[in-house]
Structure formats: structure tokens, C-alpha cells
């Protein structure tokens, strides 16, 4: 079965890749399967300087999902360059998720990242507060997105994916703004802001009080966001949120996602991405349909 998918200016060997922050820098999963078989590898969000992240506890489980407030801990772009070397021989695309604390930092990271030969795609995480503009989240403000994506577009030549936050009134406005500003594809979506309280101690389970919720419980929310974005833009949309098995992945493809990212499910079953490739193959041959026919095949009449 041909599982390859075209995402504008890049073609992946199949539609399955990890979601940033749930797959380390890639190599940690080499024990579970051949990394070269994946559609792509998406690395942990990188910033200019190493970032310590938030104080623990940083994670907690909720029914059907988890909340995390890692605080974007990462090794910084220089150490990242070292890690990239170990991915040299992999025969799959490498997508680098990145972010900045300020407008300028975003641009610097983008420039530097795009200069690394092994980086195939830049995925910009815009769910971060703009430290210079009163901490408003970049991803909720159309003007900031437009300027940010426009400027990044100017300094890089590689494919640019924009990862949207779902915590907005109308995600299609953000999607259209990102498309106009030069995004090559959209990743829909990041986590949902959430909270959980430990009854016994009467404290938030997360030190930072709140965090981002992910996992199967949020799937119907992200699926709707993907559905709406697919209808609003003409660039490819990559679905993300709560995928744990082939049937949830199929839902995203049917509503029109060209590829999907799997996050939290990597913790539940580190072999999940390889299982999904097998299961999609099985599904397509059983149903006698090609992947291209399946994508966007939702019947709404």
C-alpha cells in the first residue's frame, strides 16, 4: 500500500509522526522500532538558550488524559545541534519544533535551525506567552501571528509548519492568518488549558496550578478544530490531539487531516506509531481504498 502523503513542499513516507515533547529527541524510541519507518520525527521544542522548565510536580493524570506543565524545558539550540548528529543516518524527515520568549528570539532560533542540514521542517509552537507584550499568548493574537510568521518566513527557506493553540474563540481566524503569513502547513492543535486539584491536600496537582491537557479525552475537541481548519485554509492540516489507536487516527484523516501527530499515546504504548502504520495498511487493504481517497472522505451531505 502506498502510504505516502504530500504536505505541500515535503512528502512523508506515511502520515504518522510523534507530537513534539512526547518523543524526546527521537533516539530514545529506537529500542521500540526502526525510526526510519516513521513518517517523520518531531523533536522536543527548542529555544535559543537551554531552559530549566517549571518546578515539579509537572504532570498529573486526569480521567482519559493528562495535564503537563513542563515549562518547555529543553537543552537549547547548541546542545540540540549535537543531538541532531545522532540522527544523521535516519531515513526519515526531521521536524524541529521551536519557540521563543520574545519575537526576536523566535526569529533567531528559526534562522539557526534552518541552517542545520539535517533539519527538514521547522514547526513553530505559538502557544507561548510574549514576554515583551505583557505575556499575551502569541497564538491567540492575530496581529502577532501575522508578524511573527511573516518574519520567520522571510528568514528561512525550509518548510514552515505552524502549530496552533486550540484555546481561542475561533481557530479558523488564526488558521487563515497563519496561512496568509506564509505557513506551509498547520498542526492542529496543541493542548487545552486545564487544572486538577488534589482533594486531600487541597492543592493543585501541578505546581504551576494549571497546564495543558492532552490524551484521548480531548480527541473530539481537536477533531472539530481540524475539521474547521481544513474547511478554512488550502494548505495541508496535520491533526493532533488524543490519537491512541487506528480508529481515532482514521477520524482525523477522514475529516481531512493530511497527516497526524501522536503525543500522549507514546507514553501509554511506546510502539504505537509502528502499530498505526501496520493498522493503516491493514485497514486500507481491507476496505480497498487508497489513502488519498480516504483523506477528506467525510460524508456530510
Amino acid at each position: 500500500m502506498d502510504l505516502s502523503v504530500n504536505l505541500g513542499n515535503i512528502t512523508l513516507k506515511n502520515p504518522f509522526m510523534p507530537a513534539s515533547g512526547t518523543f524526546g529527541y527521537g533516539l530514545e524510541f529506537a529500542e521500540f522500532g526502526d525510526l526510519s519507518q516513521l513518517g517523520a520525527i518531531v523533536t522536543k521544542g527548542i529555544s535559543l538558550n537551554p531552559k530549566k522548565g517549571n518546578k515539579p510536580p509537572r504532570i498529573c493524570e486526569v480521567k482519559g488524559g493528562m495535564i503537563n506543565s513542563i515549562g518547555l524545558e529543553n537543552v537549547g539550540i547548541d546542545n540540540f545541534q549535537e543531538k541532531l548528529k545522532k540522527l544523521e543516518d535516519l531515513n526519515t524527515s526531521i521536524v524541529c519544533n521551536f519557540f521563543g520568549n520574545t519575537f526576536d528570539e523566535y526569529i533567531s532560533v528559526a534562522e539557526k535551525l534552518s541552517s542545520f542540514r539535517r533539519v527538514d521542517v521547522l514547526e513553530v509552537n505559538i502557544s507561548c506567552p510574549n514576554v515583551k507584550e505583557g505575556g499575551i499568548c502569541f497564538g491567540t493574537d492575530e496581529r502577532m501571528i501575522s508578524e511573527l510568521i511573516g518574519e520567520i518566513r522571510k528568514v528561512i527557506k525550509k518548510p514552515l509548519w505552524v502549530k496552533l493553540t486550540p484555546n481561542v474563540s475561533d481557530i479558523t481566524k488564526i488558521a487563515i492568518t497563519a496561512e496568509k503569513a506564509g505557513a506551509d502547513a498547520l498542526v492542529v492543535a496543541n493542548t487545552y488549558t486545564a487544572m486538577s486539584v488534589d482533594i486531600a491536600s487541597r492543592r493543585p496537582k501541578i505546581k504551576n496550578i494549571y497546564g495543558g491537557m492532552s490524551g484521548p479525552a480531548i480527541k473530539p475537541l481537536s477533531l472539530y478544530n481540524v475539521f474547521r481548519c481544513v474547511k478554512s485554509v488550502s494548505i495541508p492540516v496535520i491533526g493532533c490531539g488524543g490519537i491512541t489507536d487506528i480508529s481515532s487516527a482514521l477520524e482525523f484523516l477522514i475529516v481531512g487531516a493530511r497527516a497526524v501527530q501522536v503525543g500522549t499515546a507514546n507514553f501509554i504504548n511506546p510502539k504505537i506509531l509502528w502499530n498505526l502504520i501496520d493498522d493503516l495498511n491493514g485497514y486500507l487493504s481491507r476496505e480497498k481504498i487508497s489513502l488519498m481517497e480516504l483523506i477528506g472522505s467525510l460524508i456530510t451531505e
Partner: protein
Amino acid sequence: MKRINGKIIARKILAKDIFLISIELEEEFGNFGPGNFIMLGINDFENILPRPFSIYHAENKNIRLIIKTVGSVTGKLLKCSLPYEVSVLGPLGNSFPLIKGNNLIISGGIGIVPLFDLVNRINVECFFAGFRTKEEIFLVENINKISKIYLSTDDGSFGHKGFITDYLEDYLIKNRDRDFNIFACGPHPFLKKLWDIGKRLGVSSIFASFETYMACGFGVCLGCTVETPKGFVKVCKDGPVFNLNDIFGE
């Protein structure tokens, strides 16, 4: 590190809220060190994340864990009908160093589990095991056969009355001229107390296994971080066994 499906085929109550489960795996588990742990996954949509448990025993396609019921998953493991499908990811983390010298072991409650296998692998002078009360005592009989054991309960319902850390302190004071390695596992305040005692009496090294909430268990989620004076460490990958000096020292 492997991920293996299996099923719980037997369960035995050992003490109040504490039970042993025996898991039959589809593949061989392989070798492990004392202190290594596994992530145990249940196929339950309410509790999607696997949970960390020390390896009590593993041989061929069988692995045994000793579990204390404290919450949702441990509660389900106690009540579920057998056979019960689970997944096992491991062995994970580092393990206690197998060193020579005057080795003492000290455990608080369920903390005895990761230390148990140590008595088979190193020379142990004495095993200090503390429990809250008589009903919660388990495993000590098995240890008794191999090593000298010193037992206390907080309420004096069995063994010596009081905190096991105090008895260890007495022992160290009585043997002030000798140098010890201490191997420990127990709740956070217990480990803090040990660190204070060790510092006061100049114990050269205390190795302790730590507990935190985990999502992945192998270093990718960055969720299991604890703060130390030297920065954050990942309990799942840098630990779970740490030299207390690296956690509480300046």
C-alpha cells in the same frame, strides 16, 4: 528496555493494603539490577498512564511486583478479576551500586521492595525495616533468612517501638569508629531524616531510591523532575537511585 504484554495470573495479600501480583509475560523479561523498576500499564481509559513499580522478582517469562493500594490504579489491581491484561515496560532506571564495605539497609513501609533483592547481591551487615504497625509488616521473614534484621513499628505493635531511623542512628553511634554505606527507600520525609543523620554522623554514602509521578518512565516526557541544589534531575533516568548528597547536599 522492552515493552511486553502479559497478564496478572495470581495475587496474594501480604499485609494490610499490600499484595503481591504475579504476571505472566509473552516474552522473557531479562536481567535487572536491584532498584530497577518497570512501568505497568492497565488497559483502562480512566487511568491512561502506566505506573512505576519496583521489580520484586523476575525470572524467564514471569515477573512479580509487591504493591500497596494508595489510589486509583493500585486499587484496581487489588480488585480486578484474574487473569487481567497488563503491559510491562522495563527494566528502567539505574540500580543500587553493588559495592563492598559495611553495608546497612534501611526501609520505611513499602520501601522494602526495591531493597529486598539487594540482600542477595551484596554483603549486608544489618537490614533495618520500619513499619507503621503490625498489620502492615511483610517480606521480613524472607529477609530474616539471609540477613540480620532489625524491626520496628511506630506504635510498638511488633518489634521495637518507634521510628526505624532512630534505631539506625543508635547503631551508627554505637559503631562510630566504622564507616558505612547505607541503602535506603521510603517516603520523602524519611529520606530527609536519614540525610540529616548521615551528615551529623559522617556516613560516607547513602544511596536511596526516590518516588515521583511519572508518565513515560524512560526520560522523554520530562515529567518526573525533582529539584536539587545542582539543578533538576529526572527520577526515571538519572535515578530512581540517588546518592542523597546529590539531592539534599548543597
